[in-house]
């Protein structure tokens, strides 16, 4: 489950932690209340280390009443897949349930955190694990027109640091694809597959004049310490040697419009199955852009991301992990969302993956081994009050395993994987 952030409440005495910390409503930090999408102010809140506002009254220094820095997010829903088939094929209905707990917020004037734990059942039984989590140290120098924000972070997932909602982790789709079985049929770039709590990383960033942004980090799999889940890519666990992540961006606000263009990427050195195996390398490079319009009653958010991945496999794994010594994948992601009065909204997402054929990696199409797939994801939602969101989302697969009709070697068409889901999302 990817992104989310904390929302506020009408009740000023019992609201999620960041809203409690700043005393502000969701729309302040989330575009039209569409969490996890961040406004310009929300980005600065994160980049200045979640330190704006007040903090729990530990030192008798603070003026506000004490309240525990905890909040809860509940999601429930029901998904329906077009066609029910044999075991490995899409199931016809699924219950969607997840509960997240958050803590964090301001710790000192320079240190703050975002801590999330999620338990859920999205088809594969219950689990409760560390979700997106990070601690930041940040400072901002402002004088005579010079403005420099700089900081460092420790977190548990590359792209947790994203403030432009243009990564798989923080994308605009609240409920993921919600077709657990289909997900295995839709190859993804390696960077998109990192889950929270599966690696640990440190990074540093600069944001000059809230215009130029540069960030570098390095991640590796846990070798000791708190138990977390392994990173799984394709069919099994993967362990990462220290692997670099970076991001560069240019951003500008003009009137109610906000623009960002940039690039980000990662080179992942991955041991497949166990630490003892030889290293495969995934080079992911993405161009990304964001547009926002933020002026009540109209809010628009749009993203574009074009990612190229080239992967190379160690000689002894060619034939077992992958059929080819090297492969590539191209991902195109486009989304646009609109919400009126922060209440009635919709999102349309388009995602397209193309790449080199590999019969071992992409076994669905037994003739070509094509990874290619394409989906449209329309969604409508209603936020009757800022803590509650009700939505309906449909995922339409127009291509899967390189086929637009019956997939070679299967009896299924891409449309058999189409999934609809009703959901309720409540955050407090």
């Amino acid at each position: 489950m990817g992104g989310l952030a904390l929302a506020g409440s009408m009740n000023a005495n019992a609201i999620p932690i960041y809203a409690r910390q700043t005393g502000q409503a969701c729309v302040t930090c989330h575009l039209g209340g569409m969490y996890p999408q961040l406004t310009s102010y929300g980005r600065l809140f994160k980049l200045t280390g979640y330190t704006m506002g007040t903090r729990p009254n530990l030192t008798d220094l603070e003026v506000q009443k004490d309240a525990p820095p905890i909040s809860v997010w509940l999601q429930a829903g029901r998904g329906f897949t077009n066609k029910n088939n044999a075991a490995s094929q899409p199931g016809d209905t699924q219950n969607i349930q997840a509960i997240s707990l958050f803590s964090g917020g301001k710790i000192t004037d320079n240190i703050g955190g975002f801590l999330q734990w999620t338990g859920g059942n999205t088809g594969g039984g219950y689990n409760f694990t560390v979700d997106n989590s990070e601690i930041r140290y940040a400072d901002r120098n402002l004088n005579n027109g010079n403005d420099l924000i700089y900081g460092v972070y420790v977190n548990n997932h590359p792209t947790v640091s994203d403030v432009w909602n243009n990564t798989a982790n923080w994308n605009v789709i609240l409920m993921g694809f919600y077709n657990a079985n289909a997900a295995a049929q839709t190859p993804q770039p390696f960077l998109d597959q990192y889950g929270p709590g599966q690696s640990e990383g440190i990074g540093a960033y600069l944001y000059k004049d809230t215009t130029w942004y540069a960030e570098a980090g390095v991640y590796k799999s846990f070798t000791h310490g708190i138990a977390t889940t392994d990173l799984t890519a394709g069919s099994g666990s993967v362990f990462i040697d220290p692997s670099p992540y970076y991001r560069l961006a240019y951003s500008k606000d003009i009137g109610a419009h906000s623009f960002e263009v940039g690039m980000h990427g990662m080179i992942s050195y991955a041991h497949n199955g166990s630490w003892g195996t030889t290293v495969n390398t995934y080079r992911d490079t993405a161009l990304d852009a964001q547009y926002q319009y933020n002026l009540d009653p109209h809010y628009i958010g749009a993203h574009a991301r074009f990612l190229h991945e080239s992967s190379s496999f160690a000689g002894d794994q060619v034939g077992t992990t992958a059929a080819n010594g090297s492969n590539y994948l191209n991902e195109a992601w486009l989304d646009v969302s609109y919400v009126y009065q922060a209440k009635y909204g919709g999102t349309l997402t388009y995602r397209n993956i193309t790449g080199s054929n590999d019969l071992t990696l992409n076994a669905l199409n037994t003739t070509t081994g094509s990874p290619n797939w394409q989906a449209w994801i329309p969604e409508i939602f209603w936020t009757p009050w800022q803590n509650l969101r009700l939505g309906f989302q449909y995922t339409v697969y127009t291509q899967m395993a390189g086929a637009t009709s019956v997939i070679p070697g299967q009896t299924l068409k891409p449309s058999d994987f189409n999934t609809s889901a009703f959901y309720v999302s409540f955050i407090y």
Partner: protein
Amino acid sequence: MKHIAKVLTLSAISLALGACSTGLDKSRNLGNPAVSGNTLAQQVCSICHGEVGSNVNGNSVNPTFPNLAGQQKDYLVAEMTEFHEHTRKDPAAQDMMWGIARNFTPKQIEELATYYSKQPTRANPNPVNPALAAEGAKIFNEGNLDKGVPACMGCHGSNAEGNGPIPRLAGQHQDYLYKQLMAFNSDEMVEEKENNNAKDDDLERPHGVAMEGIAHGLDDHQKHAVAAYLQTLK
């Protein structure tokens, strides 16, 4: 027991503060009365009410956020006090300013008001429809006498520069001005229902009594027009 816990936390926190804090002059703490108004203006308010790469703070980019630069000091004090006391309660005020002003001390309000009233103003860079602005100019200078609306300039000044508790409107964002006129307008409708005896609690801007009838006397188009004109003033 509780005491020991407190001492431990205190020492941990002061250690952390000592090691990692850059001090009060760059704090974003909205709960610490020792943080000065100037520091808050730079570290917090400027994100919404300011513009980057400019050493002037208080001319905002997004029209959601009003310009504060060159605003009348008395008016700024009054509004910050109203946000702090929750008397000004139009939706944007509740969503964004109540939290900011939650722990304001009178000293911080005074410092912030002084700071912003002294920031130089600048021409609003956002475009307006010139024909609409021309209509607005007429309303601003002459009022809308059929509906008993006096000339705005009578109170707000010939160049909308304001005076004491009467706000400066020159160069203010059209969208913001329109939304405030709508707030005064809906307050007037509450007053009409309550025979001009509405309680402050029922009004979005209870200190804007002077503006209620005026806003109500302008139709929607006229509100847009006068707001457009005001945005063009320097």
